[in-house]
């Protein structure tokens, strides 16, 4: 059993072609789908609350928060080939953390709770990565996925059994988040806040992944051994991206806790972890926008279908997932996005390079 393969591997020459300036400029005219898609989605998301009814805006806010969560999973699986089946651990821990801050200390200021949630996610992910990924033996993908899954299951069980954390019922009625003296309740205000945070984190991730660090990550996803031979500390790279993704999941978790007004054990456990895997596989792992689209489609469909077909909706979801894995391993995004653009280019933009050349 191979421990390094990620399964979804484009042939190596695709990356070569995308990086060589001559080839890329020949295709430069065609390489425009991704920015168009991103801008179109941003515009659609920005005007959505103006045209949607209020209860749908509330639902859309939740979807945006889940998009943020999906981004965090996409970073580790789509870009670093770490199959984290316990991503909800960081999401839920941050949620519980801020819920406790609110319940026991009355802290609800956005400037306190969001950094706190992010930090909780970051530190938890750093510790888990330190244990699962670092060490003398490089860890196999199966071990890491099992370890993360166990982490989420463990947290779920402990939270269920803990009286302090509210047991089965979780922590209800968290007070609203505040900005200064303004109380942020669900609705358009919350929606735009989440959208702004999502866009910010999306852009930061995009920048990170197109830097040298991102190039090394893409390399280790494609061929871990070769990157190790180049002298990169592969396990460290993985641990770093894992911790960053934990931080993002933490941000999403704290937003989710305040948006829903309560936290419960499903946020920590296997249910949420598999949910996020569904989103990202559906949309297309290895592209940030794929994670967002996948979340929007799955949640949109479930909003629309679960009213009329509540009983068979999970079965439909399973069948759709299976079909996507079988026939569109790169996700729905691959219907419109070519291989070349999916892989993209790294470092300074090609134009700058051409200008710098004599």
């Amino acid at each position: 059993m191979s421990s390094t393969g990620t399964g979804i591997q484009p042939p190596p020459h695709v990356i070569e072609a995308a990086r060589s300036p001559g080839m890329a400029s020949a295709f430069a005219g065609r390489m425009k789908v991704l920015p168009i898609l991103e801008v179109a989605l941003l515009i659609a998301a920005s005007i959505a609350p103006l045209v949607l009814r209020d209860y749908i805006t509330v639902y859309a806010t939740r979807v945006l928060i889940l998009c943020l969560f999906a981004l965090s999973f996409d970073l580790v699986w789509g870009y670093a080939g770490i199959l984290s089946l316990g991503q909800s651990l960081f999401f839920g821990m941050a949620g519980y953390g801020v819920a406790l801050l609110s319940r026991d200390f009355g802290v609800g200021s956005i400037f306190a709770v969001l950094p706190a949630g992010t930090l909780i996610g970051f530190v938890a992910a750093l510790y888990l990565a330190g244990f699962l990924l670092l060490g003398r033996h490089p860890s196999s993908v199966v071990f890491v996925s099992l370890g993360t899954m166990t982490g989420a299951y463990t947290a779920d069980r402990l939270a269920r059994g803990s009286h302090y954390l509210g047991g089965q019922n979780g922590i209800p009625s968290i007070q609203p988040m505040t900005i200064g003296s303004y109380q942020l309740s669900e609705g358009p205000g919350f929606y735009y806040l989440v959208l702004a945070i999502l866009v910010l984190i999306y852009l930061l991730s995009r920048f990170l992944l197109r830097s040298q660090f991102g190039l090394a990550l893409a390399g280790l996803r494609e061929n871990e051994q070769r990157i190790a031979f180049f002298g990169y500390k592969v396990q460290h790279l993985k641990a770093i991206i894992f911790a960053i993704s934990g931080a993002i999941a933490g941000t999403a978790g704290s937003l989710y806790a305040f948006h829903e007004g309560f936290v419960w054990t499903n946020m920590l456990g296997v249910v949420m972890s598999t949910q996020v895997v569904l989103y990202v596989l559906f949309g297309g792992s290895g592209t940030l926008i794929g994670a967002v689209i996948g979340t929007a489609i799955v949640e949109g469909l479930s909003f629309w279908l679960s009213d009329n077909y509540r009983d068979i909706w999970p079965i439909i979801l399973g069948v759709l997932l299976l079909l996507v894995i079988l026939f569109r391993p790169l996700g729905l995004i691959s219907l419109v996005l070519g291989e070349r653009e999916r892989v993209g280019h790294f470092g300074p933009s090609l134009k700058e390079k051409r200008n710098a050349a004599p």
Partner: protein
Amino acid sequence: MDTLLIAAFEILSFGAIVVLVVLGLGIIASMMGIFNFAQGEFVLLGAYVTYLVHSVGLPVPLGMLAAPVAVGTLGFVLEKLVVRRFYAAPIVAMLGTYALGLIIREAVRGLTGGLYLSVPEPISGSITIGSLHFASWRGVIVIITLLVMAASHALLAYTSFGLRVRASLENPQLARASGISTGMIYSVTFAFGAALAGLAGALIVPVFSLFADLGIRFLIQGFVAVMVGGVGSFAGPVAGASVIGTFSAWLPWLMSPVIADVLVFVLAIIFIKFRPQGLVSGRGVNR
């Protein structure tokens, strides 16, 4: 002394259940390199078939015979249609089989209406030895587990079919060149692993009763057991399952069940971290 014996029996019978559940998972993981995330749902399906046979008024043991056949057949079909495409990419296989498991689980949830359904024990009552009472059905599970384990081992180690399976495992190209239809061998091996899960589900349904999340309960446990035991050999998963089963049944006697449940997994993960090859590091089937 009496409590000690009863505890020992409890531990033994629970250990047997875990071994039974893990056996099929271990055979598929070791022989084919596929971590089958639908295995828990095969267990669930075995339980459901037993319930179905019972609910139409036929005797429960008949359902227990039908379950492995039905689940094995389904495993065969699924291998031909779906799992076959995943051999080149074991990680995608995990996700694909996960999707299969999701479909089966939700289908059963729909069929059972999300209820807990009970199936009576075919052999009820208890065996009395001196002043001690043991539930007979649990004793039967222990005996059947031992028989199934011995039979599976004999099948893989001593028959010509077993030889072909091992050959396809070790060197598929050479096996094909020698005239073994490796595709067929893979289908049958997968079906066999599924049938074992079906049997496990059928046998344990009187103990645990039938509910949609029955499989999930065993999935993590099964995977941890396979990893602790060591992937690649026959003895590995069995050893791992014995260890995990023993600890899962023993620790709740010492501490609160929640902590015990969690502690087993955490200890197992730490163990795997420092000994990735598992308890049994060899490959193949020892004779």
